[in-house]
């Protein structure tokens, strides 16, 4: 079936460095993608989204890149801070009449001081 997955389960970076979290998706018909951040003990929190007619979108310290050719999505976090430590999920507009989001398996980002 269709799936959204992440290459690295855990990413460890030094404070101040840039972080890149990757996500591969298999549904070529997906037209909308979202990155979520989930801190320990909390629900997922929206970070940034991108539509399939875009290659790049920037937010505050975050950038999402979309490569439809290879069905790859990435989240770049600039100047990573300890508060960025969390599990990050990518999600795509799902198959169920496009009313649902399909979530990837998550990447844990650990920021070392």
């Amino acid at each position, binding site marked *: 079936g269709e799936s959204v997955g992440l290459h690295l389960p855990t990413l460890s970076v030094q404070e101040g460095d840039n972080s890149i979290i990757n996500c591969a998706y298999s549904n070529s018909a997906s037209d909308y993608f979202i990155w979520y951040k989930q801190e320990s003990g909390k629900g997922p929190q929206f970070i940034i989204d991108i539509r399939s007619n875009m290659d790049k979108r920037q937010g505050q310290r975050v950038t999402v890149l979309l490569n439809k050719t290879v069905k790859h999505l990435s989240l770049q976090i600039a100047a990573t801070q300890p508060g960025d430590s969390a599990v990050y999920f990518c999600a795509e507009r799902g198959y169920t009449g496009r009313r649902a989001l399909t979530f990837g*398996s998550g990447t844990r980002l650990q920021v070392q001081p």
Partner: protein
Amino acid sequence: DTAVSQTPKYLVTQMGNDKSIKCEQNLGHDTMYWYKQDSKKFLKIMFSYNNKELIINETVPNRFSPKSPDKAHLNLHINSLELGDSAVYFCASSLPGLARSQYFGPGTRLLVL
């Protein structure tokens, strides 16, 4: 003000019992969801309601029954709890129509003994 709230936050119960989890959103959204997050952090949609009408019902045992008394509330009732039901259950809401960014509650941690 809490946008999406869930009660209880923790729920420990014996196998075979029946329990309910409540969810309320004050965002004025028409669409609400229930997700299950397993021990590996995988998030999977269970149900979605739009304006009190069930629109998504994934492959979930019929021991799980959602109820939406009004568009601001979506409760989840679980009959005959099993060990495998232990997970974190998240409620979410969004604007109606095609799937888009969803706002998640803090989660209910269910432990079945």
